[in-house]
């Protein structure tokens, strides 16, 4: 909330001229600028993981990326954050091309990967410190921010313990705040709540909501449909690398005359367990 207030006041000395940034945040989702523009993006390994996907995610939007195992969600995120090169197509993240301007893309984004990757021989605080340093955060700000995040996610007491000794859920929580330590404009959260107890999950939900209140864009993948229904402004369901449904949870539930989002999901993707190639 604080950030928005500051934005309305700027530029300094002329409070009557509203900041276009802040204006954009106040628009309804459909009329905002796109934070992520994906155009006909494909990735082929032995299988086609992402297949001609086109999608816009708006600034300040909390977008749920849903789909069965192997649908291509992680591959899509990996392409958007510069880890994997697309076979065909292109995308812009924060206005920068993911192929030509990947360095600028990386400055804008924070990624909480599906597979927790933390430095086990460092403490929680040291992990945050390292990630913050990689984004060249000023030392004082980094210290303050780390403290806030650790407190917010309930890791303050364990902050000085080595991460190797954390439980699975604690590692997940730390991984999330490591992705957010530098206050990225766009956050990719690949199954952030997996392996978490209900308490932690609710804490994380609060966290994610706060992010979008601050005008950040969030791409969230999850297999918990109630989580997506509860949190997301819009969801996109992908299967076999293709976008097969897109809309707000309420729209989709209505369109498919379903009881809840999980119904929609099962209707669209079937009841067979996905077998990976």
């Amino acid at each position, binding site marked *: 909330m604080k950030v928005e207030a500051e934005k309305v006041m700027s530029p300094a000395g002329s409070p009557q001229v509203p900041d276009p940034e802040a204006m954009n945040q106040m628009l309804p989702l459909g009329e905002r600028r796109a934070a992520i523009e994906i155009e006909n993006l494909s990735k082929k390994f032995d299988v086609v993981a992402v297949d001609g996907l086109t999608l816009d995610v708006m600034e300040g939007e909390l977008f749920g990326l849903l789909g069965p195992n192997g649908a291509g969600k992680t591959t899509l995120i990996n392409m958007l954050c510069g*880890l994997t090169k697309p076979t065909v197509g292109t995308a812009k993240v924060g206005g920068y091309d993911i192929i030509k301007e990947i360095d600028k893309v*990386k400055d804008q984004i924070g990624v909480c990967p599906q597979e927790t990757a933390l430095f086990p021989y460092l403490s929680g605080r040291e992990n945050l410190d390292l990630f913050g340093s990689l984004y060249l955060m000023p030392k004082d700000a980094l210290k303050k921010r780390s403290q806030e995040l650790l407190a917010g996610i309930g890791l303050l007491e364990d902050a000085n313990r*080595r991460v190797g000794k954390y439980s699975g859920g604690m590692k997940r929580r730390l991984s999330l705040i490591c992705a957010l330590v530098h206050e990225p404009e766009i956050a990719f959260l690949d199954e952030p709540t997996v392996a978490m107890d209900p308490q932690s999950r609710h804490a994380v939900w609060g966290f994610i909501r706060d992010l979008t209140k601050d005008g950040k864009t969030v791409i969230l993948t999850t297999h918990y449909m109630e989580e997506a229904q509860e949190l997301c402004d819009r969801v996109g369901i992908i299967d076999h690398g293709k976008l097969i449904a897109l809309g707000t949870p309420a729209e989709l539930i209505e369109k498919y005359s379903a009881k809840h989002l999980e119904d929609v999901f099962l209707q669209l993707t079937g009841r067979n367990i996905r077998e990976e190639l």
Partner: protein
Amino acid sequence: MKTRRIIAIAKRDLKRTAREPAALFMIFLFPIVFVIAFGGAFGGIGGSSSPTYGVGVVNLDNISTGVATGQQWSSLFVNSLSATKILNVQAYPDNETAQMDLAQGKIQAVMIIPSGFGASCSSFLASPGDASKWVNTTVLLYFDSGSLFATQAISPIFQQVLGTLLDGGQQTVAKPISLSTPSLVNVQKTSAFDYMAPGMFAFASIFMIMIVAQSFALDKENGLLKRIRMTPTSPSEFMMSQVLSNMVTAFIQAAIVFGLVYLMGFRPLVSSITIVLSFGLVLVFSLCNVGFGLITATIAKSSGAATGIAFLFLLPQLFLGTFVGASLSGAAQSASRFVPSFYVTDALTSLLLRGAPMTSPTILLDIAILVVSSVAILIVGILLFGRILRES
């Protein structure tokens, strides 16, 4: 390239090394255990902390002239030799008795001070700049060719003491007194601790191959390389941080080895600049080991495999280029020319043990080969591993 990132990643590497018992063991404890074990086996420990070598002195200057100045000069020289604490000087009445003790191994060297020694010294002091007015004499030295220390170290000690006596150690000035070793000394490689000490540095450093390989392979396995790639860190920043952290590790390791061999009686009679240069060479050599580690990590599919593959680079260097292979066959000795560790050990041996000047051709050649091969291996490692960093 941002220094902040490089330092941040280097710091986490050093923390890992410090906190990982296996790494700590490989890098620091293992060399320590080895140095102590070899030191114990080859006489580095147990004796007095400063080893003494017996030198028999036959002072002909005393007897023949009886001139007070001659006596003063020669006894001053003998006293200065004793004052080094490395030499245990014993007076002998004549050459034969001294030679008998030398042959029996009671002493390691015999020095004959000629009758004109005092006159020679006085003539030098009277006109240090005019060689034509000097009375020239020659001090004869006989060594036990089986004692490595005697053949390698006593002569420089004599030279130094003599220089200090005459002109305060300005060794560039020509002097009327020359040292001569009439018996041809056959230098033989032995396993004396003194001779092994220079090889200890390369020995310890070589184990970095395994640590570097394992840590890179583990980072790859645990998704940490990918995780770093998601941040704005560039591959070159990452690589620089690895070089930096490993150089710090190599430096600490070299300091530990140096402290240890020193404690065990290795006293290189060289200037501090030579010591600094020696450390520098060990650091250059560590670059080569980082390179081998990177190559290993590139080939290895897992951290377990990395350990095995690391031995392929580690063992030849260990056996061909450190003290371990001091008594190798001829064929193996030629093969040793192909491992970088040979050149660092050879250079350190020349510098620290033989007291050779750093500008001598052998050392310059050693340094050149060491630098070129280390940098080349490091670059190959970086290029190979860089492909993994960039792969999609």
